């Protein structure tokens, strides 16, 4: 993990997830999925996320859409982090990520590559890019919990 202090490595992580976003295709038969579309009036970001939660486990998560470097890569990293986890584990990751974004204490081990976004607060107008996918998953988890 020490290498994550190197800006060049962080940049590579972000660009890799931007150029080759993971879980980046929506499924057509989404009958088992909860889905949400998040778009923004003020910027270009417009993503749709689908998640299949079974027995509290995130069995699959997918996203697609048009989004900037930060929105795409932060969402891609999120999908890698939460797939296969329980919703409680995912919630802990989301909470820690939000803490990091808003400059509170957080556990960096839980966040892995997502710490690439630790400095987003330097340009606060980009916080919404770094959180759009994370907010989408939060809303889907809330939806799942409500339906239970």
């Amino acid at each position: 993990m020490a290498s994550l202090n190197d800006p060049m490595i962080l940049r590579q992580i972000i660009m890799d997830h931007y150029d080759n976003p993971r879980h980046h295709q929506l499924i057509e038969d989404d009958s088992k999925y909860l889905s949400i579309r998040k778009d923004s009036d003020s910027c270009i970001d417009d993503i749709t996320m689908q998640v299949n939660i079974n027995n509290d486990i995130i069995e699959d998560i997918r996203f697609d859409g048009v989004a900037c470097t930060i929105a795409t890569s932060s969402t891609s990293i999120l999908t890698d982090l939460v797939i296969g986890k329980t919703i409680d584990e995912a919630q802990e990751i989301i909470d820690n990520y939000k803490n990091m974004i808003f400059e509170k204490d957080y556990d960096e081990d839980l966040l892995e590559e997502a710490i690439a976004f630790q400095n987003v607060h330097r340009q606060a107008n980009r916080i919404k890019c770094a959180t759009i996918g994370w907010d989408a998953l939060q809303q889907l988890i809330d939806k799942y919990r409500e339906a239970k």
Partner: protein
Amino acid sequence: MFDVYETRKKYPILNGIKMEGHNLVYMDSGATALKPQCVIDKVVEYYSEYSTNTHRGDYPLAHRADEEYEKVRKIVKEFINCNDENEIVYTYGTTHSINVLAHGIKHMLKKGDVVLISEFEHASNVLPWFRLKDEIGIEIEYVKLDEKHHLTPELFKESMHDGVKLVCLAHISNVLGQCLDIKEIAKITHDYNAIIAVDGAQSVPHIKVDVKDLDIDFLSFSAHKFGGPTGIGVLYGKYDLLNKLEAYNLGGGMNTRIECNTCYFIKEAPFKFEAGTPAIEATIGMGKAIQFIMDIGMDNIHEHIKKIRKHAIDRLQNELPEVIIYNPENEGAPLAFNVKGYEGARCQDIGSALATYGIAVRTGEHCAKLLPNLIGTKGSVRASLYLYNTIEDMDCLVDALKDIVAKEKENKGDALSWLL
């Protein structure tokens, strides 16, 4: 003679405010312009010397508020050269003006009537018309444009037909900056007995807009785009047409008599559109802002911006092949561009990177959400200029872009370096 360096001294924000440790290079005036001290003082004067309501009180202080407030109608009249100050409706800004117009004109349109707009319109000159389609079944059509996305009077003529009842166009587009030949377009519109409503949000701050000379029926604009306060703008209309519009907001100040049997009587234009307590201080501030730019001279403003804009374009074209400029030939103030490899959604990274040099630009779709169909990119960087920008500002932009591109080439962190 206009001296930009002297003029800059009158803007407090340009004298001491830093961004990211640099002097502010403000290139987002298309979104809103900075405010000169005299406008700020005028607003504060209202609050500290006569902050009463208008049209209400029987005491001298209230009279002063009335006078200052109504005086602005005369200033606007002179500014846009209309026939009568009663052709000036105060609104909250361009968006509100267009909505007042769309609601007010609804009863004059019927199913199948065509409202002709363009694909470069701002959302506020699109959505009110889309809603009329939903409400009463009018049709929306788009004017034809040439391969450079320009609208010539010839193409406009080709787009016109007897079904068109209303033409709604931005005089200057907020992204591409083309200045339409509105005089000719208005003439053609009237040949077809149609009405022309001009969105002047970007033109009124930059060029002399003479509604009589151009013969336009309606004009909308916002004060904040030429250095006035936010929350105040104007809907101009030729009086007879204006008075035919139905008022949307009903309430105090716009009625003459109300009876228990639910009969009510309303005032004539412009007052019938001005229900409720208005943005008094903003209105008074708008008057000051108009006087300020008229004193400088609209032609001086336009010439100055043309000059510095050309300087930046010449340098970009000669020194930075990596930059794509979407509107080099237009004279309007916005400069829309992308750095190759950063088109579309990545243009935001260029915006964030420029911010680290103290340069304020806007990125994205600029509320012109139909435009990507035209220019083939969903997002662009927009550097929009105003009378206080200098040649040095333009150099600062070009040099920063060169720096960013060079770092990108060396793979040294490029446009994301602020984040790392």
